[in-house]
């Protein structure tokens, strides 16, 4: 076959196993199989592990470089697992590490069955899984179901051979008039959801960039092929997937082509594969929509949930920022009040920061007016809440606020997702532009390249942060792990406390209201298997000024609040409302112990 027309020509994967190395007589691309590789040992069995897990999002590129080429890799990440275990992380979430032309941060996947060479190989990934599982740490990664890169051999076959086995893998059309009601998501760069392909002489459908053609889920072979992609990684031992951009799998004339019933049907198929063949692994939906729409992705509540095990709660994060800025609990109370109950076997994922941007598109409807009007009125919020900032600089490097935000992340309903580097209060580099500002190398030591890589500093993929406040000489893991009062040690301690009380993981959330608008107080209440209630009380001062609060705890009369980080006993709850005072941006976590439970602990 001619060099230029080989379907795998654009992959850059010569010498490693990849899709399209050869083609069968029937015209099928030969793809790597899981049997070709070692499989990792599984983590200890626990079907509900995700409900209480602390997740940690880490970019392979940014964590540790094992071979001195200036780019972080899977072996480098594996070498830091002791640190992550020490911190208390239960599960790593890795954004895509697949083969990719990297025109969309790796979300443009050109081979689902190969690793981006600069990150290592499939074998390196199995090594990472093995080492992680030994430490009871699980690993999930992104999987883009909706589309591929236009460099994927499937697309190359589809455009050159319309009659071949891949001819119907994508959504082709003679004109660009179909599905006119679907909005254009990336309005800044794309003018249509259709792009003309001169090779095939037809238009192809794409909800995202024009170099990311949508897969055609009407074709049963596409569905099977994608289920086999799931199986490939699950066979190797991966613990689950974050399913990217799930609302868009199917198209239907006369609809906005989002959240269609058949999209949910396919997700149910994915779930069935996981439940039947790989129990204990999870699916996490990325659907950047309002909670009442997102709950659909958990599936049927009567069945305990039969689609995704988890979904991100997107609107909570900006509301936490808004609440502290307004010194008012209502932005948070409102959104949690509007969040529907989820199936028994499901869990939210909540976060303060991640690699991605907050979009306001989801809040344009009339009833979602609140965020929009508040944000539109506040230029600083509009600029700062976006993609360019990390937690510490967003909060003016104020330690009290960082602690308050983290305390809320660890105690509001849902499994918390930390973003790498935020545990030491890393800064960002807004001069790098776009999303790279928050993707700089992890700061391990005050040494060269912050201990991230031994390469020549000029070769590093992005410069390490060097400013006097957030630079690696001031902010790094080594220095903070040696300082008992550091943010790192504080974060570790809070994670530890969280894990001692299952109420944080699965407890019912009860907003306590109260007459002081600046204090957000809530209970997490969990019925233990032994029939006892595990009740945790969280009180957060969203104001920078000291505040009093009187809480109606009448139903816990006689119980004693025990402060959870120090174990100090507070006065017993009596007939009157319970008075607490908090310093500016202060917070408390208490366990409420009934008199007989107190006796036990003596």
């Amino acid at each position, binding site marked *: 076959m001619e060099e230029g027309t080989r379907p795998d020509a654009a992959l850059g994967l010569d010498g490693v196993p990849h899709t399209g190395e050869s083609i069968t007589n029937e015209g099928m691309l030969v793809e790597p199989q899981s049997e070709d590789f070692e499989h990792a040992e599984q983590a200890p069995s626990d079907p509900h592990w995700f409900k209480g897990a602390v997740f940690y999002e880490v970019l392979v590129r940014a964590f540790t470089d094992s071979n001195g080429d200036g780019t972080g890799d899977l072996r480098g990440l594996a070498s830091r697992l002791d640190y992550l275990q020490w911190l208390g992380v239960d599960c790593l979430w890795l954004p895509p590490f697949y083969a990719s032309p990297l025109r969309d941060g790796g979300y443009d996947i050109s081979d689902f069955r190969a690793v981006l060479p600069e990150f290592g190989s499939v074998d390196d990934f199995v090594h990472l899984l093995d080492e992680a599982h030994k430490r009871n740490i699980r690993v999930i990664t992104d999987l883009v179901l909706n589309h591929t890169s236009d460099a994927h051999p499937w697309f190359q076959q589809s455009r050159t051979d319309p009659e071949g086995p891949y001819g119907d893998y994508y959504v082709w059309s003679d004109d660009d008039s179909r599905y006119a009601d679907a909005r254009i998501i990336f309005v800044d760069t794309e003018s249509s959801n259709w792009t003309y392909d001169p090779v095939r002489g037809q238009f192809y459908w794409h909800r995202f960039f024009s170099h990311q053609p949508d897969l055609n889920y009407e074709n049963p072979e596409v569905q099977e092929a994608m289920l086999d992609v799931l199986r490939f990684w699950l066979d190797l031992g991966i613990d689950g997937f974050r399913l990217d951009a799930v609302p868009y799998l199917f198209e239907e004339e006369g609809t906005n082509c989002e959240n269609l019933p058949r999209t949910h049907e396919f997700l149910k198929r994915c779930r069935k594969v996981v439940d039947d063949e790989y129990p204990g692994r999870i699916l996490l939906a990325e659907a950047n929509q309002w909670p009442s729409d997102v709950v659909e992705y958990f599936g049927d509540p009567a069945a305990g949930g039969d689609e995704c095990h988890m979904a991100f709660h997107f609107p909570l994060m900006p509301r936490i920022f808004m609440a502290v800025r307004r010194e008012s609990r209502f932005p948070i109370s409102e959104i949690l009040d509007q969040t529907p109950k989820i199936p028994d076997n499901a869990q939210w994922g909540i976060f303060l920061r991640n690699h991605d941007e907050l979009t306001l598109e989801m809040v344009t409807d009339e009833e979602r007016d609140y965020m929009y*009007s508040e944000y539109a009125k506040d230029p600083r919020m509009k600029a700062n809440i976006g993609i360019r900032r990390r937690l510490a600089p967003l909060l003016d490097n104020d330690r009290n606020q960082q602690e308050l935000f983290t305390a809320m992340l660890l105690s509001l309903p849902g499994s918390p997702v930390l973003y790498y580097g935020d545990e030491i209060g890393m800064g960002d580099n807004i001069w790098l532009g776009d999303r790279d500002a928050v993707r700089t190398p992890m700061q391990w030591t005050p040494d060269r390249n912050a201990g991230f890589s031994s390469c020549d500093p000029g070769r590093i993929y992005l410069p390490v942060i060097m400013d006097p406040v957030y630079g690696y000489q001031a902010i790094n893991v080594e220095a903070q792990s040696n300082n008992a009062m550091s943010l790192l040690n504080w974060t570790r301690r809070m994670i530890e406390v969280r894990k001692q009380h299952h109420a944080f993981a699965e407890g019912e959330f009860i907003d306590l209201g109260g007459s002081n608008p600046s204090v957000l107080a809530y209970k997490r209440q969990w019925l233990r298997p032994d029939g006892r209630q595990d009740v945790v009380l969280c009180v957060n001062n969203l104001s920078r000024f000291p505040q009093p609060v009187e809480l*109606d705890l009448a139903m816990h009369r006689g119980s004693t609040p025990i402060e959870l980080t120090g174990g100090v006993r507070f006065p017993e709850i009596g007939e009157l409302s319970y008075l607490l005072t908090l310093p500016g941006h202060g917070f408390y976590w208490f366990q409420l112990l009934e008199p007989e439970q107190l006796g036990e602990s003596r």
Partner: protein
Amino acid sequence: MTDRPELLEELAAALPRWLPSQRWFAGKDRPVTAVRPLASTVVLDGDPLLLHVVVEVVQDDRVEPYQLLVGHCSQPPDVSAASWITTDPVGLYEASGDADLTAVLLTKMIEGEQVGTLRFAHEPGVELEPGLRARPITSEQSNTSLVYGSRYILKLFRKLSTGENKDLVLHRALRDVGSTHIAQPLGSITGELAGEPVTVGMLQQFLPDAVDGWAMATTSVRDLMAAPSTPEDPGAQPHPDEVGGDFAGEAERLGASVAEVHADLARALGSEPVDAGELDRTVKAMLDRLDAVAARVPDLIPHVPALRSAFEQVRGLREETGIITMQSIHGDLHLGQVLRTVGGWLLIDFEGEPAASVDERRALRSPLRDVAGMLRSFDYAAHSLLVGQDADEAHVERALEWATRNREAFCEGYAAAVAGGTAGLGDPREQSTLLRAFELDKAVYEVSYEHANRPDWLGVPLASIARITDGGDRT
């Protein structure tokens, strides 16, 4: 049922001394010359005993009826010392703090019982949870409210007036048209006074998550006052739209909520165009109040010509009478009468201005009076942190900017909501003559109140009067 006349005698003898110490007692300005029992009902017989009593309080020529819940028990209950009306020879105490006794009121509303002349009822279709115990809330001014298990709130009206109770009537009317900006009415207790029915209690949904508008607004003011100026340019002050605690979004939503309540009231109870006679009466009432207050408060005198002129201008609106409408309104609207809940803003306490006569409270009035009340309240909130402090010009300027921004936002929200709804009066700023007069009238009332009660605050309404009559303030 025993009438227990001997207890009533004891009570009547002790009340003249006890009443003036009660927060809700409205006649603190004069001594109580006599208290006469008008009616008594044994709500719970035996030991403990719960007596519902209506007494007539005589203060020279003023005679007004009040209701009391009186307890009597051989085992003295755990109530505050101030609750004891008399201890010798028999112990009688005000029973709203005795949860054992007040629980009976809820039970009887659930049962829909009639006890003597007292009629306990729940609203049609409402199912109440039995067995809840009550605690009194302490913040109330002129009535007493009991909260049952964080679910319901029972407001016991202290000073009684016969005829339909405006608070209850308006709540029911708003409920019937599906208003989402009220705490739903759930039940009532009706008694009898001089042969006429009188509402003595109203049960409503209680909202444990609610924060009153005053606390919300002053949280924002506090944030603005504490915002730093920059060392490079100390003259450049932070503005309310730049700081974190900006309240304009809330003020706008609050304006929309008030407008929706007005539209709902007009829909439920009707509205009519104002006539010339009504305009004249309104102006006369404003001028009378002005004269009366100016006679007592010398600080007001320099403003009298400008105020008089602003009030007189209302007479000139005769040609526009077609667009000025009268309807049922809240009547005493301010930030303390609105609640922020997770579901949005609610209005509470539709009784009307406490100082107004019963007839005045029930009369149809311009909804602009409510708008004016809210605008005044924004002014108060803005200045609340400065009262009693040495004047700091920069802070006064911030307060002014805060008030202007949030008054504007409130009017924006009000105007937008009415435009999108069915009925209403449009943008209140378009009726500036009337709105200004109502606001000034309210400020004159405030001058009188502050002069008598809180001299430190007198500067707040006086400064507003100066500013508004000077034309320096658009809304």
